[in-house]
């Protein structure tokens, strides 16, 4: 036990003295910049809110309240009143609670859309980068086709083809990211394929599979991670856009910012805050992810190493 802990301590010492890894170094440089810290704070608060919102929401976001419904007419939606901070929405639900819980749904859509995009993109890019040759050509022409369609148009086409549900939105938005991730990973893998350490591993007779998964992939994944952070921001916006266009979730009751914004568009003259607050929330969160992603990208760029 004591031997183990000494060894661990030694290891920490040597880490402290013997330079830092690229990732640690980049992380440190990232959080020296105030922009990055702002991004991290926004993202952090958003994630915390998404996790705890069901517990701190003052009212049930999925149930109409009689006291709100009593005053609800087509031309009048109740504003703030005791117990209901932001008043009612168009269906007599507590708007404030829905706004809070909306963080969770929005994060859910954003994260899963990005994860699926990363996963599919990495499979395509990984295959192309690992095999090269005609596999590469076919897969890359495929991503070229996807890239040639404007991203929102692509998402709209996919969403229009599938039945309206939350997963439709997620898949449609994920497809926007797929060609980007595929390209990124493929490029990085190709650079790795001609690198010295891959040549050295080949000269040692290491199996192809091991070379791809142990030597090429881990060295290629950095740009993909950064891009994923940036994509989270656009994924949230794209999901909102789909909902706004009525191509999203068919369940109008779900508390999700994009959906709330979309449903509020006819009521702008009646109660503008129904559109205003979800829109502001989306903008702030997207900004947070973008700031964080951009500063990560900058600090991982070897040209900026100090």
């Amino acid at each position, binding site marked *: 036990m004591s031997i183990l802990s000494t060894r661990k301590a030694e290891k920490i010492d040597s880490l402290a003295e013997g330079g830092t890894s690229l990732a640690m170094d980049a992380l440190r440089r990232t959080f020296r910049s105030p922009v990055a810290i702002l991004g991290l704070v926004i993202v952090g608060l958003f994630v915390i809110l998404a996790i705890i919102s069901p517990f701190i929401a003052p009212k049930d976001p999925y149930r109409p309240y009689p006291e709100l419904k009593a005053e609800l007419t087509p031309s009048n939606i109740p504003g703030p009143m005791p117990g209901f901070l932001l008043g009612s929405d168009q269906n007599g639900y507590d708007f404030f609670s829905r706004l809070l819980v909306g963080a969770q749904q929005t994060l859910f859509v954003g994260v899963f859309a990005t994860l699926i995009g990363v996963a599919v993109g990495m499979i395509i890019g990984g295959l192309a980068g690992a095999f090269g040759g005609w596999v590469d050509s076919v897969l890359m022409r495929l991503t070229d086709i996807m890239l040639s369609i404007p991203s929102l148009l692509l998402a709209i086409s996919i969403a229009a083809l599938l039945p309206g549900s939350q997963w439709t939105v997620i898949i449609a938005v994920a497809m926007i990211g797929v060609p980007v991730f595929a390209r990124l990973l493929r490029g990085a893998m190709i650079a790795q394929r001609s690198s010295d350490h891959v040549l050295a591993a080949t000269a*040692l007779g290491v199996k192809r599979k091991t070379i791809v998964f*142990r030597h090429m992939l881990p060295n290629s994944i950095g740009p993909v991670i950064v891009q994923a952070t940036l994509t989270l921001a656009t994924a949230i916006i794209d999901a909102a856009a789909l909902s706004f266009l009525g191509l999203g979730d068919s369940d109008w009751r779900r508390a999700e910012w994009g959906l709330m914004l979309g449903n509020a568009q006819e009521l702008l003259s009646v109660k503008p805050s129904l559109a205003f607050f979800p829109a502001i929330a989306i903008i702030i969160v997207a900004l947070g992810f973008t700031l964080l992603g951009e500063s990560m990208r900058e600090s991982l760029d070897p040209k900026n190493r100090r």
Partner: protein
Amino acid sequence: MALLDVRDLSVVFKRKGTRPFTAVDGVSFSVEPGQTVGLVGESGSGKSVTSLAIMGLLPKRGAEIGGSVTFSDTELLTLSDKQLRDRRGRDLGMVFQDPLSSLNPVITIGLQITEVLERHRGMTRKEARVEAAELLDRVGLPDPQRRIDEYPHQLSGGMRQRVLIAIALACRPKLLIADEPTTALDVTIQAQILSLLSELVSETDTALIMITHDLGVVAGLCDDVNVMYGGRIVERAQRHDLFERSRHPYTHGLLQSIPRLNAPRGEPLTPIRGSVSDNIEWEQGCAFAPRCPNATDVCWSEPPELKADDGRMLRCHNPVAIGDAVTEGAL
């Protein structure tokens, strides 16, 4: 029976739209078990391409390889990719020039050694780890038990090269190819690495092909030396013969361009004129003729053959006269 027999090896790089480029042109040499053979030449002389061709590491498309490479009775050039992978690392090892970029930066050096041991010697992860620590100890890495869990960037250049040597020798290959293993290192470390290499190969009776542009390295290490120019071997001799009586004007020039400690003060070095040209033509004459002080008309019109001469192999119409040698006490 030689361990490695290279016969008439040629490598031609072909690309659409450009003229084919002959990087290696009819190179033949052999390596006996336990012997150390040097391949010497400037950049662009084809020495690295020769080694990559032996290892089967040249890209399949774009490089046309001719001749034969026989390694203990097996023809390497016709082996399938999989058969070659089974041999590389086990029978043939290789150490590259740049020790930092030749190690994978994201995994520990321990894993990079055990990977080879597991692959070729069928060891379990645990056995391989013990063996890896022993190997690191043997190549003189201080505190191997701790270093084994470190990443390449935590080691100095010399230590990294030691690690690469440990990896290359992990499966006790019969032949090790060292491609300029000391070029990226400090001079003091160079000497250490070279003596380590020579110690290890003589200990394990491993044959070594030393690829270098540094005649000092050759002087300290090699039994036989092949001097390459423009993709062909221009002179082959035993180490002592080569250094005492270099006959080819190119070898002669290389030796004269080395600074000597016992040279008279202020004596200028004699560099070889010009530089290696990209399209070296052996078809019409001697490729070295444009840079050769001894060149005569015959050198421009008739390509010289590699012929036995004075106990060595020589490809020259006008070799340096025997009495005219440079190098007493040169190195």
